């Protein structure tokens, strides 16, 4: 842990760090690849929609009958509809009959109860009309749309439109990946999945927003200095919030893992399982995208600004000058991609301070740098 803390400290100071922005093209590429895979998977395999979307009935009951017996009963009771029987823990069977109207399901329930020799009232039943899932999904889409508009507006006001745009892209990226995983693995899509998916919205952005917040702070007076480019500051923001990002993701995933374990292991199929599965995939994607996609995108967009272009040139010129000077003096201090190290050298004078010591150089009688 002490090592972790140390890494945290060094990440924070920028002594170590991964060049997220510099290698963004690689990560963009990976993301595009994953997204394409997800879309292809979705197009080719489609989603395995649960009975909530097709209409049908699910009966769950404790019974001594074996799965094959139950299958037999279910098929005869279903009368032509497709029946899927699943043995759950604790001696229960789950019988799912798809394509059935809510009105037709009642006699089936009675027949099944008779076959399985249990009272009707001990049969857990879920009857779903064929349009119900669609309705949930439609409402979810509506919610998604409204949420996206609101969040983009909010981020555009609280931060700026570039961040809003990047956050939106990251969000869509997360959702696509999650849906893609569902298509590829063939998990069943239920209203629980929809709930999980919608929760990802909040979570994915939550993560992104924290990085953006640090970035906004770090880049406040950026144009007034000429030591760092926007991209470098952005990279440091990611690195300095990396520990937090990892911690957050771990802490968020742990309860979900608990849900997944209990949902999958103890209860068999069910809502807990569906929600946590979607969450698990989505959270992982969300953590990834806020670091590797959202912030680099902001950096990309921001670098196109004339001010930032000018800044980048000033920084370049200055570094070239410094390099020349240092080279002429004697040895090293690699000017290029390690601005943080250079800055550390300067920090001997006073306490080093986050973020990126933008304007420190100005107010100080240092003179060492020039």
């Amino acid at each position: 842990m002490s090592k972790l803390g140390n890494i945290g400290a060094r990440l924070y100071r920028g002594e170590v760090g991964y060049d997220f922005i510099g290698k963004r093209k690689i990560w963009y590429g990976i993301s595009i690849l994953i997204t394409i895979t997800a879309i292809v998977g979705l197009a080719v395999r489609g989603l395995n929609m649960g009975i909530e979307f097709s209409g049908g009935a699910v009966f769950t009951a404790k019974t001594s009958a074996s799965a094959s017996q139950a299958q037999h009963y279910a098929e005869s009771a279903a009368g032509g509809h497709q029946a899927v029987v699943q043995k759950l823990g604790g001696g229960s069977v789950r019988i799912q009959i798809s394509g059935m109207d809510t009105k037709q399901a009642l006699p089936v329930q009675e027949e099944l109860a008779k076959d399985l020799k249990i009272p009707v009232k001990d049969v857990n039943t879920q009857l779903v009309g064929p349009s119900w899932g669609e309705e949930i999904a439609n409402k979810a889409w509506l919610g998604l749309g409204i949420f996206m508009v609101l969040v983009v507006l909010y981020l555009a006001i609280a931060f700026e439109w570039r961040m809003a745009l990047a956050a939106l892209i990251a969000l869509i990226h997360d959702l696509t990946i999650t849906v893609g995983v569902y298509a590829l693995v063939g998990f069943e899509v239920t209203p629980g999945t929809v709930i999980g998916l919608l929760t990802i919205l909040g979570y994915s952005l939550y993560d992104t927003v924290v990085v953006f917040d640090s970035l906004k702070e770090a880049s406040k007076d950026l144009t007034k200095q000429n030591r760092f480019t926007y991209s470098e500051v952005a990279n440091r923001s990611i690195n300095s919030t990396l520990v937090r990002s990892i911690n957050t993701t771990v802490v968020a995933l742990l309860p979900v893992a608990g849900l997944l374990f209990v949902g999958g292991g103890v209860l068999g199929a069910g809502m807990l399982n569906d929600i946590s599965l979607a969450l698990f995939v989505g959270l992982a994607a969300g953590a990834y995208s806020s670091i590797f996609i959202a912030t680099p995108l902001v950096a990309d967009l921001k670098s196109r600004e004339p001010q930032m272009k000018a800044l980048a040139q000033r920084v370049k010129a200055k570094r070239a000058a410094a390099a020349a000077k240092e080279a002429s003096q004697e040895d090293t201090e690699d000017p290029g991609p390690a601005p943080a190290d250079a800055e550390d050298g300067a920090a001997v004078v006073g306490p080093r301070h986050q973020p990126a010591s933008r304007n420190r150089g100005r107010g100080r009688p240092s003179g060492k740098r020039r």
Partner: protein
Amino acid sequence: MAAPKKGRRAPASQGHPGRTLLLVLIAMAGLIGGMFYSGTMTPRLGIDLAGGTSFTLAAQNQPGKPNAINETNMKTAAGIMERRVNGLGVSEAEVQTQGTDHIIVNIPKGTDAKQARQQVGTTAKLGFRPVLTTTAGTKTPEPKPNPSKGGANGKAPGDKAAGDPAKDKPGTEQKASSSQSPDAKPTTQGRAVTDALKKAPSAKPTPSAPAKPTTPAVPPTPGADIPPALQKQLNALDCASKQSRATAGEKAANSKPSDPIVACKDDGTQKYVLGPVGVEGTDVSDAKAVFDSQQGQGWIVQMDFTSNGGKKFADVTGKLAAKAPPQNQFGIVLDGAVVSAPSVSNAINGGNATISGGFTQQSAEDLGNMLSYGSLPLSFKIDDETTVTAALGGEQLHAGLIAGAIGLALVVIYLVAYYRGLALVALASLMVSAILTYTIMTLLGPTIGFALNLPAVCGAIVAIGITADSFIVYFERIRDEIRDGRTLRPAVERGWPRARRTILVSDFVSFLAAAVLFIVTVGKVKGFAFTLGLTTVLDVIVVFYFTKPLMTMLARRAFFADGHSWSGLDPKRLGAKPPLRRRRGAAPTQTKEA
């Protein structure tokens, strides 16, 4: 720009951490006290955790009434359903509208789901339509013997018709018969109705002269100006089997009120061609079954109309009374099936009417219920029906609790491993958060009818992560400040404004998601969104009024302030610059950057 902010903030947040803490504790004690006071110690459990049946009904658009699905109508419908379900003797059934066009009906365990479904799902739309013609219920009408039972049944109403006007309330001169006689076989019942209906009209001029029952109106009375299309429909209509009746009923229920329809008697004994709706079911303000001991009529159903409905009813009955049988009957049509088809002898004024004849207590009460509660302004279809046995409910609750415990334990282990002493703060905060969430959920049960369901449990578990994250944000900030060479106390204060902003921004996004979900979605998603929103708000409150003051207080303790290696704030472990560099003067300069 940041410097003045700091000045403003410092006294507020640093000044009296104890007081703020006390405030939170008092609030907590108040909530817990409220819990004891209200006597509810556990949150109300939803159907999926406690067992029971839950229906989700969707209002359906009807032809001719494009704007029928509105708030008023939905509320009316929900109110009617609630009365109806509770009329079953179900305790604690709840009916609520959700979104624009859904009604959720939750019926706790111990109720016959089938009966409830019938009450909730099938009885939807009621109307009074004049009968244009009637015939036996089968496709090819065949004459049947006149059973003695039917005759008896038929006679009764006729006799009553004689005695009635004198005895009944001024306005209730309406004589009618109904087929409600549970032990009668469908055919005999049908006969009975027809007989009675035949009788009643003949009794019209002088109610005391019942006509002898004749064979039922097969074939349909000629001379009535029935359009050939309808006649054809009538001939094709098959009321014999339950299935075909359901189909016919659906078709009839879905036709416009202003169109004539063909419909079956609900027991399949008769079929009718009915004119446009004369009086809507919503015009009945009340109907109840009454035992008429004075006149020996047995069970009768009394109806009260709204003032508007009374006028319409008087108008309709006035017209009907002038017609020849069977066109002097009106059909009480419920969901496309004729429940009863009494005949009319006089215009019925005064806003109320009685239906008499051959009722048992049960059948009279049923009809009364249907008349008074059956007047839903909308028709509904069942979208989702979930029945959970108490056993499974308990199991699911159990599983949810285990999942929560596991999740919480994992988070605690992680926090302790990573933050050591600081984890205590996090744990205390999580606990406060948990207590607040629990008490509020419990108190929301009786106040707004909040019920904890499985998705809500799920939301609460997911919220552990969100809540813990706020602490992480703050702790990381404090650590960053320490890494910058500050001692704990300034670090705690200086890290706060920045952590606070991050927490607010990210919690706002999370809350926004929850709020949008809550407003837009239906059913289970709503429960989830509600919990998520609630916990997000509580998270902000806890971090502001508990975690921060607690941190301020702990920062004064030597264990934390001196950076004990188990405090999680050891400057050396955190890789802080040696304190040498911690110049006093440095701090103000840097505030500008914050």
